């Protein structure tokens, strides 16, 4: 222990901490989120293009791609790979649809020990549930106004 440091004023201490603490790696985080998120999207586009190539309608092809990405997110979570990716990619692993299925599997595993119905079954949508609640609610509210406006024009 350095006695000099113990007799510091508050201001000195704040300066000292700021000096010693690592610079927030905000640009590194940003670049990784951009890269990983962008790559998930490219995978989604490639899958869509492949199914379109096999004469699926654009909408159907994109839905199949979504299902595969959802599967991928769930699978990578169950073998413990997704959480490792998340440590580096941050929002790049949360924002894509794979992050949505990751949130389901991760919470489901966490609560599995509390039983299959009230543990796994009840908690799997602990994080993803709000997304569906707010998504559907907002779409119905928006739809209602759209319907209302359409009545008058």
């Amino acid at each position, binding site marked *: 222990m350095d006695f000099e440091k113990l007799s510091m004023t508050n201001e000195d201490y704040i300066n000292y901490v700021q000096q010693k603490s690592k610079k*927030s790696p905000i640009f590194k*985080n*940003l670049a990784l*989120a*951009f890269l*990983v*998120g*962008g*790559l*998930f*999207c*490219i995978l*989604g*586009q490639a899958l*869509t293009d492949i199914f379109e190539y096999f004469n699926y309608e654009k909408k159907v092809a*994109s*839905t199949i791609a*979504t*299902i595969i*990405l959802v*599967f991928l997110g*769930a*699978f990578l*979570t*169950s073998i*413990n790979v997704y959480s490792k990716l998340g440590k580096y990619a*941050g*929002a*790049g692993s*949360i*924002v*894509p*649809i794979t*992050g949505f*299925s990751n*949130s*389901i*599997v991760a919470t*489901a*595993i*966490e609560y599995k*020990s509390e039983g299959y119905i009230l543990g*796994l079954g009840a908690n*799997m949508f602990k*994080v*993803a549930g*709000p*997304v*569906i609640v*707010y*998504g*559907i609610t*907002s*779409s119905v509210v*928006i*739809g209602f*106004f*759209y*319907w209302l406006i*359409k009545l008058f024009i």
Partner: protein
Amino acid sequence: MLMEYLKVFLVGGVICSIGQILIDRTKLTPARIMVVFVLMGAILTAFGLYKPLVEFGGAGATVPISGFGYTLVAGVIEEIDKIGFLGIFSGGVKATASGIAAAIVFGYFAALVAKPKLK
């Protein structure tokens, strides 16, 4: 073709970067980030601003969770045009049904087979 994929990468990357900025600056939890993105996707779609992004960036705009909001609202509007009032309620879930079902089923089985992490 390469150009198309570059656009996908760009749009998807920028959307995820916005999420990263939110995480770093506001300390929002992942659940809140996802809700914010779904709401943004739905609202932007309502004002006709998300569709151009989908046309420009393809999967770059539909793979992020904001695309879920887009699909919901686009589905509701399409169904209202087709069948009227009932479409308000049926359109969104109809358009996203396969994604939600896939998330439930794959999520369930993945959690079932996974071994809980030893801490």
